[in-house]
């Protein structure tokens, strides 16, 4: 069910990521202030964007689950959120590396996007204990979906709030996350973003296929046991 079109997708991902890699190392100019470390930006920001997108997509899939009652949408939602959380760890780690290299501290509060991301990440981490402490499978799926929807609505709200607060007290230091990137950097960034997105979708499909297969296997085993 999920593996339709998987091979071309995987190929596209590989190609895009390789291109992005090449661009980052050979095409994008070296940043005047920060030097080589700035290149981590091409990993950090796309990862953050894709993670946030994944979380919101998880919320949308959760809406489909609740409205239709089809549990497969909940499975899709779970995998999307789950992958985004993993990406989230990557975001925070690369963010810390970048902060250390740029400002000498492992963590700074100046960058509202990163701060907002931290709060969202902390919230989504609760998804696991919430989900797995409910025993009834139907209820587990339903409650997880409710959470995914509330948390999905929360993401933009939180972003607005943090941005308002930080801009109020600390003038924004970085403007590189905006649209004002010089041409080569912008191209590299966009390719990296595309590659990250494709990677996410590929992993998403992969995990769903694996989960689906193991579920079918369990069902078959059960049927065999009952018949025996």
């Amino acid at each position, binding site marked *: 069910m999920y593996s339709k079109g998987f091979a071309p997708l995987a190929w596209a991902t590989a190609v895009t990521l390789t291109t992005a890699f090449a661009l980052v190392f050979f095409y994008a100019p070296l940043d005047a202030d920060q030097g080589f470390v700035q290149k981590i930006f091409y990993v950090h920001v796309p990862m953050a964007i894709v993670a946030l997108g994944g979380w919101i997509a998880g919320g949308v899939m959760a809406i489909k689950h*609740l409205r239709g009652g089809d549990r497969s949408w909940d499975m899709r939602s779970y995998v999307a959120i789950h992958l985004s959380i993993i990406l989230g760890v990557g975001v925070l780690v690369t963010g810390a590396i970048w902060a250390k290299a740029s400002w000498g501290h492992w963590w700074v509060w100046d960058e509202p996007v990163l701060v907002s991301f931290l709060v969202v990440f902390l919230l989504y981490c*609760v998804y696991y204990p*919430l989900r797995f402490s409910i025993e009834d499978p*139907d*209820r587990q799926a339903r*409650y997880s979906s409710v959470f995914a929807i509330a948390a999905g*609505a929360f993401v933009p709200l939180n972003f607005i*709030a943090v941005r308002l*607060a930080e801009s*109020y007290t600390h003038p924004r230091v970085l403007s590189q996350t905006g649209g004002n990137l010089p041409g080569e950097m912008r191209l590299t960034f966009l390719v990296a973003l595309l590659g990250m997105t494709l990677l996410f979708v590929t992993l998403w499909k992969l995990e769903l296929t694996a989960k689906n297969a193991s579920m079918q296997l369990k069902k078959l085993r059960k049927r065999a046991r009952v018949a025996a």
Partner: protein
Amino acid sequence: MIAAARAILRKDLRIEWRTKESVPAMTLFTVTVYVMFHFGLDRDTLDGELAAGVLWVTVLLAAVIGVSRLFAAEREQGGIEGLLLAPVDRTALFVAKAAALFIFLCAVELVAVPAFALFLLGPGLDGALPELLAILALGNLGVAAVGALVSALAAETRARELIVPLLLLPLLVPLLIACAQATEPLFRPVAGPEDLARWLGLLTLYDVVFVLVSVAVFDYLLED
């Protein structure tokens, strides 16, 4: 639906009045935390940002206690079932619980805010009162909506007491930001520039979003 919500609310208030389980604990908690902050920060008085932050963080932590207890009686005594067996719109339960939490928070703040002024606040409260009340009202509304949703969400999980704070506190961050930022100018020794409209605007947005989301999804938490 309103009539049913009113009946549920009356029942909850009556039970709370008799058992006195949530409100006294929440109130005591806030006063205790003020004392802890006194020792932790080693300060006699606070003003400005620090005061606003301490006040709001404490209130929100106290809210966690209230939220944990909100659906406790229902779970233990089958109250939700009683409601499901009645020809009543299930949203009534959400409205009633959120209203109850709102009232509890107001009751707690009735003591906690003067206590704060007494123990920790440098500049006085006079003159700032109307604005403070507006912030409290909108803030309580947001906490009530989110709290009722989180309480219902955590009600069926095994690790209820752990899940509630972990879920509630991140969700309250935007509200905390708005309330603290709005309150800060009120606590300055010398009146400074205010930006109340912006923060009240954010608070209202937060309240609207979460009331809508909660009402929309609440049904799915109750059905089976």
